[in-house]
């Protein structure tokens, strides 16, 4: 007896120590994970939130009848030279700026997209024409970066994109209270642009929306039907075993392979156009199908056999058993699988590369047949652009994508809470 007790006592301290060490390993791992994630989120957020505000400059814009060929009509408003109007207003502001190079720098204060904004403003509200009036115009991205404090004015002039004279002009606008940072509407309503101040995320959001819709419409019904058949109705034999093994393997195939498959079949055989969300959605649905089938089968398998037996026992046919009893109970699990698959598809770029969705697309797609790109692709394209103002846009696009993913995931959690049954 005493020897056993001695053994226990002599090893007890070591066993306690081992247990506490093991707990500490776990805690440290979690801490490292949190640190990485926190670092990622904080840097992305610190870069990205600045996009919410965009610099505008108030300019006394000369909209006297002379600018519209003497007469203000609907036609003359649509056809006026707004580029010239903005430039002459800038010249009137700083009459002593002379020389081609200096003038160019002066015109560079205002975004080159402002002329289209001004035209749209006037077409919408023709009553604005006829006077010299103060109008807030979109500033160039260099000005925006400067206003956000990311250009150091103490640097030697040669090292700055924004030269001394431009900073002087901006300072004068600031003194007069005519520079303002406003909520960045264009970022949420426009498509891509090569000018950072005009670039928006909306085109990519719509592209992602159509792509995921197509993906969902194809993958969810096919995946669920396949899972129900395989799990509930199919005979157990070699063929179904083979299919099962293959589905499990497909889930682990790298996504680019599905892209190449899409290129070979959808584009080359069926002759579908490049760069459209329809093809993107079809390719992604190929990719998500295995995930959906596997998780749907797991959900079906989790329904207790007693339910089936009871249904069969009161005389329901196998199909009625499945449709009336098993499927509704397996639904939450199936939906979870479907949404996880779709969330994965939402973040995917590799298969889209080969079917031409990694492209510069300005026009916001209006349907699945219009060329479009998706959010992760937009992030990739912006991260590769030389202009510095794209850094914050890249981060902001990441935040938008994360927001969508969080929304999808919280939807899953809610759904599960609401529908889940425990036995």
């Amino acid at each position, binding site marked *: 007896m005493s020897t056993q007790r001695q053994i226990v006592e002599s090893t007890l301290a070591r066993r306690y120590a081992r247990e506490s060490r093991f707990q500490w390993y776990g805690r440290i791992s979690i801490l490292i994970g949190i640190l990485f994630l926190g670092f990622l989120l904080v840097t992305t957020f610190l870069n990205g939130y600045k996009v919410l505000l965009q610099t505008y400059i108030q300019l006394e814009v000369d909209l006297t009848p002379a600018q519209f060929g003497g007469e203000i009509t609907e036609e003359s408003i649509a056809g006026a030279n707004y580029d010239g109007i903005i430039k002459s207003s800038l010249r009137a502001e700083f009459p002593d700026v002379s020389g081609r190079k200096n003038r160019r720098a002066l015109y560079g204060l205002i975004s080159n997209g402002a002329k289209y904004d001004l035209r749209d403003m006037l077409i919408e509200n023709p009553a604005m024409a006829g006077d010299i009036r103060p109008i807030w115009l979109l500033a160039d991205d260099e000005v925006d970066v400067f206003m956000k404090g990311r250009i150091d004015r103490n640097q030697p002039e040669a090292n700055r994109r924004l030269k001394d004279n431009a900073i002087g002009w901006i300072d004068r606008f600031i003194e007069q209270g005519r520079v303002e940072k406003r909520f960045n509407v264009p970022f949420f309503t426009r498509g891509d642009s090569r000018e950072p101040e005009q670039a928006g995320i909306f085109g990519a959001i719509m592209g992602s929306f159509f792509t995921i819709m197509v993906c969902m419409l*194809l993958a969810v019904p096919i995946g669920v039907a396949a899972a129900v058949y395989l799990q509930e109705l199919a005979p157990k034999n070699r063929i179904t075993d083979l299919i099962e093994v293959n589905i499990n393997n497909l889930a682990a195939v790298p996504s680019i392979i599905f892209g190449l498959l899409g290129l070979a079949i959808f*584009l080359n055989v069926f002759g579908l156009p*490049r760069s459209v969300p*329809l093809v993107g959605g079809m390719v992604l649905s190929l990719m998500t199908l295995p995930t959906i089938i596997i998780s749907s089968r797991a959900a079906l398998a989790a329904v207790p056999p007693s339910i089936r037996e009871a249904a069969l026992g009161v005389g329901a046919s196998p199909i009625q058993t499945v449709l009336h009893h098993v499927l509704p109970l397996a639904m939450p699990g199936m939906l979870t699988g479907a949404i996880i698959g779709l969330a994965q598809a939402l973040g995917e770029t590799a298969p889209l590369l080969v079917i031409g969705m990694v492209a*510069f697309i300005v026009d916001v797609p209006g349907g699945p*047949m219009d060329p479009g790109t998706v959010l992760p692709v937009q992030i990739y394209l912006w991260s590769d652009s030389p202009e510095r103002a794209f*850094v914050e846009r890249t981060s902001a696009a990441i935040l938008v994508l994360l927001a969508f993913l969080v929304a999808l995931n919280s939807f899953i959690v809610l759904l599960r809470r609401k529908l889940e049954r425990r036995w």
Partner: protein
Amino acid sequence: MRKSAISLVALGLITATIHAHARDHIMIVGSSTVYPFATVVAESFGKTSGFKTPIIESTGSGGGMKLFCAGVGVQHPDITNSSRRIKKSEFDRCQENGVKDVVEVKVGYDGIVLGSSKEAQRLDLTRRDIFLALAKEVPNSDGSESLVPNPYRTWADVNAELPAIKIEVLGPPPTSGTRDAFAELALEGGCKTFDWVRAMKKSDKSAYKSACHTVREDGAYIEAGENDNLIIQKLQENPDALGVFGFSFLDQNADVIQGASIDGVAPEFELIADGSYPVSRPLYFYAKTAHIGVIPGIQEFMDAFTGDAAFGDEGYLTDKGLIPMSAEERQQFSTAVRNRTSLSM
């Protein structure tokens, strides 16, 4: 459920095939170096012309040529960008696939820069230094006419006038056009300064090419991917490293990055434009004549690209870092566009 899903797919395919015959936007593929310039033209074209904004994919010069030369028809691209001239083999492939008439347009130049952090000492390199520092095999330093695996570890080993910093160069991978051009202009330029290697060009062309174009793989040259912004960031963190990237990235990051002078010439806008900076290359696009009139706006897009407002001395492309051609050269190519002069090789 399954049946209806299948018929849905079939329906989608049918309607899509019908749609495919009516593409109304220009499709452009090709070089990632020309991409930042072509996209600016496309965007302004889309806003001003009334045509749809062209769609531009960045596939790399070689990938773009492959797609472009695959055939004539709406499913094939109309224009491909290239950071080098079309190769004879690519041209032949085009001809074989029925792409007979191709308009060649040079749009300007791009300088390739060896940059470093502003905190580092600015290097003054020759192409010979670059070759000796980065080639896989270099001429034996004892003077015998043989190649030995690159023994140099620091810049001072290469050239006693340079600082004794470890050789560490971040640059694009072999799939990149920038890498090709860098090998051809900088490495080969330095390689040719050895007379006996130069003589090899006539006697054994492939040995010459492999001697002059092969970059060392022992860690001194680090493949940093195609993302130039990443290289810029890494340079800021490591002042001892140099990076290889396009001039537009130096232009945008002049407050933190400096470019090494090569053969005594600094990478500055004017010096690249007048041809004195030795490592610069022409940028092109190629258009299919057969698509003009079928896809709306191609001729107008080419006119917009070759207008003085775009690729001229003061055009908006220079703001993005494109180095313009001389007035005569510009004239030559805008005339070629107007006459749709077909390329022959």
